């Protein structure tokens, strides 16, 4: 007691205030750590992120609207390049691109089917019957994200020489490889949904009410995994549409490889399709967010109610 009083007398209180954190502000800073950011902080973050995203997109849109070269430093704008896409005279020029889009959509459909037919039932089965294998399954599904695409593709090339012998060298066969690439992205939303829903209890409740396994799956489990499944499918589509490395190495014509080719002859059209692809992906992500916040009965899941 005596010592502390003596110390207090020796030290200038103003200096203490400026150099030593007082208990009050210290508690406050600890309380703020990991707390929800303030409104102002949120706005700053949103603005910075928004600018980072919007500037390149606006630049692309601006570029795609240019008509001819600047005259006296004045650039003319119009929808000439957009209209040219639908001009029958250009069918030949853009046929490769449209074919690439068609191929990519086909690969999307097959990859989504792979997710729904292979990954989803496996995850549900593991959750219900072998919960101890959950970590193993997670590890397997996450592996592709830890390996660079180029390394995976180098491994795929010899495999695809056999795939080509069996199925022929069609673009849709790429779905097998893409199915592996999308595993980490497709796994996560379903896993999060599974963790949020007590699948075991619900399935046991369903069974005790007289439902067979089929009814439990169709009437109890899948409806409650709807959000995770849809999010998984949308992310899969977004990943497939953006996939370039595998298509390029396997010499397949997809949206991304066609985009690269058309860029050499008509950069405006390439940019238009790139913008459209970005908008499409953005709409998918919005849908995922929207679905994720919806609850049965149409009410929105707020941070507080969650």
């Amino acid at each position, binding site marked *: 007691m005596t010592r502390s009083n003596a110390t207090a007398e020796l030290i200038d209180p103003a200096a203490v205030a400026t150099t030593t954190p007082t208990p009050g502000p210290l508690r406050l800073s600890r309380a703020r750590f990991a707390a929800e950011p303030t409104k102002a902080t949120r706005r700053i973050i949103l603005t910075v992120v928004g600018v980072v995203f919007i500037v390149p997109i606006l630049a692309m849109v601006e570029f795609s609207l240019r008509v001819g070269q600047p005259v006296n430093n004045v650039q003319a704008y119009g929808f000439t390049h957009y209209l040219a896409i639908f001009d029958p005279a250009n069918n030949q020029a853009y046929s490769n691109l449209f074919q690439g889009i068609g191929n990519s959509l086909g690969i999307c459909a097959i990859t989504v089917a792979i997710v729904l037919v292979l990954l989803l039932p496996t995850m549900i089965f593991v959750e219900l019957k072998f919960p101890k294998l959950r970590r193993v399954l997670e590890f397997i599904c996450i592996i592709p994200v830890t390996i660079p695409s180029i390394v995976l593709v180098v491994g795929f090339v010899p495999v695809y020489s056999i795939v080509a012998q069996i199925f022929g060298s069609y673009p849709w066969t790429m779905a097998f490889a893409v199915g592996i690439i999308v595993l980490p992205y497709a796994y996560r939303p379903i896993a999060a949904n599974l963790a949020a*829903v*007590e699948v075991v*209890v*619900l399935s*046991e*409740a*369903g*069974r*005790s*009410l*007289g*439902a*067979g396994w089929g*009814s439990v799956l169709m*009437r*109890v489990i899948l*409806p*409650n995994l*709807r959000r995770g499944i849809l999010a998984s499918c949308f992310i899969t589509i977004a990943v497939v549409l953006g996939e370039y490395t595998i298509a390029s190495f396997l010499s397949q014509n997809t949206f991304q490889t066609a985009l690269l080719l058309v860029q050499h002859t008509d950069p405006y059209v390439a940019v238009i399709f790139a913008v459209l692809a970005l908008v499409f992906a953005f709409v998918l992500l919005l849908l995922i967010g929207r679905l994720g916040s919806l*609850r*049965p*009965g149409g009410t929105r899941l707020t941070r507080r*109610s969650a």
Partner: protein
Amino acid sequence: MTVSTRTAATKTAADLAQREGATVELLNVVKDYAGHRALTGVNLSMAPGEFISLLGPSGCGKTTVLRALSGLETITEGRILIDGSDVAQVPVNKRDIGMVFQAYSLFPHLTVQQNVEFGLRMRKVDAASRRTRAQDALDMVGLGHLGERYAHQLSGGQQQRVALARALVTRPRVLLLDEPLSALDAKVRVQLRDEIRRIQTDLGITTLFVTHDQEEALAVSDRVAVMREGNIEQVGTPEDLYTQPATSFVATFVGLSNPVAAELAGETVTAFGMSLPLLGTGPRDGAVTAYIRPEDITLSSAESATGIPATVVVSSFLGSLRRTQVRLDDGTLLFVQHDVRVRPLTGDRVMLELAGRPVAVSVRE
């Protein structure tokens, strides 16, 4: 002219009562998990319409018994008979058993009404009957007006009521309740407990109720089965378990007991120099542990001429009574239960007397 109005309040469980309760028998039921025997030969008989609680500490196997009866767990050995037929190999969805789970198990994507209709839908009951029966079941649990809500729009107590209605709407032969009250707060718990008992009595459905809360078990059950380490130690009425525990475990687990050193000679137990009658049968004569209930010890002031001197450690007000912990001069700690108007303070010197009621004993270890 009299108009007959049938409101939700006037509806009773009799609307659902269409069948008698079933007899249930578990014969030498054994359940092995990898390297671990969870049930070591459980035997239990339930009469039609009987309400039996399985009571025991965590990990004693009570939920395993319930899950084995429901079909959610396959048994390693033994037989499970419902109305005389062996259902051990019958899948859960064919056993015609209603079940309420500990965790809230309503289907989140369905409304309350749709949840209750689920079992009927699985039995291919037509839509009109489904609606009527589900409404009757919801009225029975007092939630007929909440049919359009979703699970997340209900409180915990309401969710468990709906789960009860859902389990009963199919008129199952047996009702299984797996700690359905454990997630609820104390007041709702007591309300729902009494309501479950009322509905069960009205329906006459054979019911097995798993709980680790002895007050709950003793309050609602016709009989209670006390489990320990995968087997049933004693089955009896709540009064029997409390007053005539068959084993030292039951004596200490059901209610509060003071284990004290004593000597057994014939039918007489001597503790603290007092002779007490032996409850039931005892081990061989010699050193034993006697289990004296707190209410069988009276507490008086230190001025009293006779008794066992002790010092008050702590005294707790429990509403209708007071429980005081005292320390004897030899260091033994005892609980004493007495009138709330007697308020001993920590450190007070008091005298204890045994009421002379029969005591259960076990061999002293």
